């Protein structure tokens, strides 16, 4: 199949981008812009779901590939987009004149991400990478308090520019080594030291997107300083795209996978250890989630470093289930944040009383991140660890599992704050808007369903992985 309809999830996003741009241009209220954007996001999710079975190359041969792999990740990206827009109903933390514009950047960035997971040629891939990044750079800067927003954006953009430059250099080395920019041809070209050097350098830009060590330092600052809806988008959609990108880049290694594996093992162990140990000392809830994201990048890498179908499927499963879990956490943040301030962990006190539903959402989020059933966090880790042991790295699983134990401590501290401490006197009941209540129910239902019955998502993930291996 070579028709333009293969491109329909991207078209849906493009439509959303144009509509929200129009809304911003004619100066509609933030509320109208939000409703238009929400409707477009629902259409995008529907289109992505319908496009799941598509396969083919809509443009020139081998540049842009639509296969099970790209389509599953596109569904993940559009789900994350929908959740982020639902959370953007409350924009207390966004600077007021930019509120209608936020949606345009959401769509533009998601479009970049979708193209990223389909790109099978290095220049296309690089252009898509930049397209997805620019929207995020701006989103990160939109906090209503200028200083916080500038810091978040400056760190993100400087890191991003550096990582992207390194990637570009890596791509030039790869081209030098193989005289081609087509991923399929590079993979079959037979390895050379130059190619490996190129891939390792390219990885810099990719690991930056995933917030993995050593290019993770932006994550806590940007999570903390970006508006809530931008943080949740950054923490979910961006991760899904990064997993897709990483799998594509790693597939270039071909026969030289062994050396890369050693590098990735080091990156993975350091990511989870640095993320978890730093998160232990955080007081700001969003910052804690930033470090937790670094740790989760480490877990995700476990699946990727296996270079096997099981490993890729486990990583895809993990990141797909990670989306609603992180959404749960940010839903609570956005709902309890007053005047756009970041909630501290202590300010969660008495949440169980102020809003039992939010208390439950938070519990699900923390248990999900910690990998406690009945959330898919356990199944996700189980599959990742299975892939790693199949690869023969028993000790690596032990390291990861002990890391998960460490992380449980700070996740439980959050639960403790919400469930044990009594509410402050001046803080009354929290009233949730219908959108937030529905989002909460949907997210919890998704998480618990996937926790009890992981089979459907696993089937998706494993179909996606078999397109690569």
């Amino acid at each position: 199949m070579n028709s333009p309809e293969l491109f329909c999830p991207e078209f849906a996003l493009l439509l959303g981008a144009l509509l929200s741009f129009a809304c911003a241009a004619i100066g509609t209220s933030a509320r109208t812009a939000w409703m238009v954007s929400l409707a477009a996001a629902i259409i995008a999710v529907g289109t992505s779901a319908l496009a799941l079975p598509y396969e083919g190359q809509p443009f020139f041969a081998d540049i842009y590939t639509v296969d099970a792999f790209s389509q599953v990740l596109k569904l993940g990206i559009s789900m994350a987009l929908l959740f982020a827009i639902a959370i953007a109903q409350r924009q207390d933390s966004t600077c007021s004149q930019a509120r209608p514009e936020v949606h345009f950047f959401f769509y533009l960035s998601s479009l970049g991400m979708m193209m990223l997971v389909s790109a099978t040629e290095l220049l296309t891939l690089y252009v898509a990478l930049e397209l997805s990044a620019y929207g995020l750079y701006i989103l990160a800067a939109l906090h209503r308090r200028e200083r916080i927003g500038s810091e978040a954006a400056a760190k993100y953009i400087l890191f991003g520019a550096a990582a992207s430059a390194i990637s570009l250099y890596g791509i030039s080395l790869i081209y030098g080594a193989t005289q081609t920019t087509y991923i399929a041809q590079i993979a079959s070209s037979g390895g050379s030291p130059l190619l490996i050097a190129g891939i390792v350098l390219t990885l810099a830009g990719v690991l930056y997107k995933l917030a993995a060590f050593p290019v993770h330092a932006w994550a806590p600052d940007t999570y903390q300083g970006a508006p809530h809806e931008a943080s949740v988008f950054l923490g979910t959609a961006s991760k899904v795209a990064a997993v897709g990108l990483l799998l594509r880049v790693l597939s270039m290694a071909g026969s030289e996978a062994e050396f890369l594996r050693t590098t990735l093992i080091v990156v993975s162990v350091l990511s989870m250890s640095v993320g978890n140990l730093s998160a232990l000392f955080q007081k700001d809830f969003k910052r804690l989630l930033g470090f937790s994201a670094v740790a989760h990048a480490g877990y995700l890498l476990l699946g990727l470093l296996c270079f096997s179908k099981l490993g890729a499927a486990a990583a895809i499963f993990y990141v797909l289930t990670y989306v609603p879990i992180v959404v749960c956490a940010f839903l609570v943040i956005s709902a309890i944040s007053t005047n756009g301030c970041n909630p501290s962990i202590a300010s969660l006190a008495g949440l169980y009383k102020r809003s039992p539903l939010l208390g439950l959402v938070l519990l699900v989020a923390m248990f999900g991140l910690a990998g406690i059933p009945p959330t898919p966090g356990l199944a996700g880790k189980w599959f990742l660890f299975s892939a790693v042991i199949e690869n023969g790295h028993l000790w690596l699983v032990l390291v990861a599992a002990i890391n998960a134990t460490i992380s449980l401590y700070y996740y439980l501290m959050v639960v403790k704050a919400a469930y044990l401490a009594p509410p402050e006197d001046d803080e009354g009941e929290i009233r949730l808007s219908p959108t937030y209540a529905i989002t909460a129910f949907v997210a919890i239902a998704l998480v618990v369903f996937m926790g009890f019955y992981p089979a459907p998502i696993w089937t998706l993930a494993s179909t996606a992985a078999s397109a690569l291996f």
Partner: protein
Amino acid sequence: MSDLPILSIILFCPLVAFVATILLPESKATAIKSVNAFAGLVSLILSLIIWSQYDKAAGGFQMMEDIPWVSEIGIHYAIGVDGISVVLTLLNAIVFFTGVLSMWTLEKRVKEYFAFMSLLVFGVFGVFISLDIFVFFFFYEVAVLPMYPLIAIWGSTRKEYSAMKLTLFLMVGSALLFPGLIALYVESGGETWNLVTLSAQGTFSKGFQIFIYPLLYVGFGILAGMWPFHSWSPIGHVAAPTAVSMLHAGVLMKLGAYGILRIAIGVLPLGAAFWAPTFAFAATVGIVYGAFVAMRQTDFKYVIGFSSVSHMGIVLLGLNTLGVDGTNGAVFQMFAHGVMTALFFSAVGFIYDQTHDRDIRNFGGLVGQIPVATSFFIMAALCGMGVPGFASFWAELLVFIAALKVFPLMGIAAIAGLIFTAAYILRVLGKAIFGPKNPKWDHLVEPTAFLTIPRIILIAVLLFFGFVPSVMLDMIGSVTGGR
């Protein structure tokens, strides 16, 4: 009748109670309690039906159900029971039902309490009946985590510290189990997680078994309170509210011992044979050490907490003899100790609820003040000493006979530990229950007739299996092959 998925029904009893508890409003406290008590009663009746339906002559796993779950990587919702699971399922049902009744007077955050508690019980049932490693581990984690809020919210005495310590210890155990359990799957060829298939002889090489066994033994052993990783257990017992202590010591610690028996020893027999002397030694130290420490405690619950370390040491010693008698005794002891500690904590909890004091030195002559309430404590104490007529007498006897045959020196040391056990129990009885009367507690009231029901059930169970141990041994023997 035989067509009904009776195991799934018993498994989902507490889950139904959980959902109902979530849906009921906080104000309907009695309704919440009733729903949970009803679920407990149904699961108790069902577990008795399972007991009577289980065909001991045929043995093996029965009432099996098998539904593909994540079929692409061989995970099945596979459940079934053998003689050992039947016994432990009954134990869980007894403790669940009596635990709900013991907490009938709870007033603080009733809804959340019963939600977490029924979730815990759901997990425990799941572990005892699952035959698939993933499903087993899933339920194992479901059972462990509710402990944190249950202790941290409703507990006493440094509750937040104890809850966190307990959770982290158990999670370190899980961290060891992750690689151990998954290695079984990968090493066997990556086809199945089914325990029955994996237990077949010759699946795993001896070197692999010796390598993996300690991961599984220690991973599960931490939950079973094995020395030297027991320190979470007494403080957890002390901090927990009554019914949680009952569940924790009565059932949760058995999950660890059950995991060792079913997976570590069941799947890796050669590894078990290699490591048995080492772990038997640790178990013996646990028996003696627990009893010693219990002698010096001044808090009722600490005494029982350390006695649990000691009694679970007996279970682990029995398992490590790897023989028929030792295993029979160990499983019997799991059951007897479960019921006995439930009774202990139930009795102490009743006194503490009124006095808010658990210091043994502050009491004296309680038997004259509240004879009925103390009689429950005395019954549990007699059982704890292993007095003939109570279930634990037979259990300990079997373990010690087996231990003397296999590890004579450790057997003697363990039996010597019994003397200390008698000493610390008699010390508590002498100081707090008998002895000179402390007039401060003259105002204490006896339990209502309703509140005596759970305690009487527990005592009846202990005495029944004390006088008719063959009922129990026939059931366990259908697995181990001995009577």
